């Protein structure tokens, strides 16, 4: 009797992620809502609470967290030890496809997207990671559909404008239809203090983490971790960190 086993990486990834204290998946229906920024700042806020935090830039075709963190190409080298070791950025363990592709473009179609994603999750050495944050590309495509099967907790990053909130609702609805039971939403770059998506989140039995006000000075700190950690935006993230930790342990 002969068997062709499924992709061996899938079960391996599932088991690998299940050993962690938690995995947060930063998703957004549209680009430009601040997913990468929120994921990055959340990684530092959780680290400030004593967690060992890993951060993966899974926006394979357009990785950019290295820009937020001010890493130059000389910093982005492959370190191999039972897989690919992370780059230590002020204590956050950072993984990025940039270490493989440098500044070259990486256009991906179809199955290549899923293959690349599975490969990165397989080869990333997470031995020293307790909580993993994964920054996903915008929209609702293969990458999101692939990763939600690994028992992760999506955090939908939404903007308050009509386009952003409409996209966020569609994404929340998809996650509900796909049977994802633990989902959170954070309203970013907010012009209004009052939340506009909290009722909708609760109608789906999802968690509303809070409203992050627009910080018009934040862009000046991009590339400077010390400046980022002194920003109003980071203070706002610190203000919702208790909510994030509670969501992690739901």
């Amino acid at each position, binding site marked *: *009797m*002969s*068997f*062709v*086993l*499924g*992709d*061996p*990486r899938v*079960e*391996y*990834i599932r*088991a690998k992620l299940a050993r962690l204290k938690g995995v947060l998946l930063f998703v957004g229906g549209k680009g430009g809502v601040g997913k990468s920024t929120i994921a990055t700042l959340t990684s530092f806020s959780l680290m400030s609470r004593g967690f060992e935090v890993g951060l993966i830039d899974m926006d*394979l075709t357009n990785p950019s967290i290295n820009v937020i963190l001010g890493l130059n190409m000389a910093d982005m080298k*492959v370190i*191999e*030890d*039972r*897989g*690919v070791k992370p780059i230590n950025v002020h204590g956050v363990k950072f993984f990025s*496809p940039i270490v*493989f*592709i*440098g500044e*070259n*473009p*990486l*256009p*991906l*179609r*179809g199955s*290549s997207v899923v*293959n*690349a994603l599975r*490969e*990165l999750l*397989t*080869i990333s*050495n997470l031995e020293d990671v307790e909580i993993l944050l994964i920054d996903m590309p915008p929209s609702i495509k293969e990458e999101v559909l692939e990763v939600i099967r690994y028992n992760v907790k999506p955090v939908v990053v939404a903007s308050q404008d009509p386009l952003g909130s409409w996209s966020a609702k569609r994404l929340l609805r998809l996650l509900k239809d796909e049977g994802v039971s633990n989902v959170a939403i954070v309203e970013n770059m907010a012009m209004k203090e009052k939340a506009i998506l909290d009722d909708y989140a609760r109608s789906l039995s999802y968690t509303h983490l809070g409203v992050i006000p627009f910080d018009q000075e934040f862009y000046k700190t991009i590339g400077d971790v010390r400046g980022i950690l002194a920003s109003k935006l980071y203070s706002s993230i610190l203000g919702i960190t208790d909510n994030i930790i509670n969501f992690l342990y739901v």
Partner: protein
Amino acid sequence: MLKLHELAVVEALLTSILSLASERRVKSFKKIIVSIGELQRFDRELLKSMLIDFLYRMNIHFEEVIVNEEPALFQCNRCGFKWDLGGIELSDYVKEAIHFLPEAVYSFIKCPSCGSRDYDIKSGRIVKVNVEL
């Protein structure tokens, strides 16, 4: 300590084999055939010996372990041209990048005919296990 990313892949293969062994309540296999793509550029003998070592440690018996390599083949979506890796010069840096992340090939190789990066990897990017009981 081993510093090889093949180890991560071998662990993935082992997870898959152990899962089937548990599901079928077996402790031995007639044949375990691993197919890996040329793009991964794995050391096949090393991968085979690592897998055998792990199988022994997990008390899984087998008559034969085979590791095959599937050749790489590409086809351009813009002009239809097909090509393989033959005659393509790659630097050590690029070979290593593709070894770790085969899809990095799109960053470094363009269609030899029209120069597009919009092509498909038709074969040579695979991690597959067949087992015979």
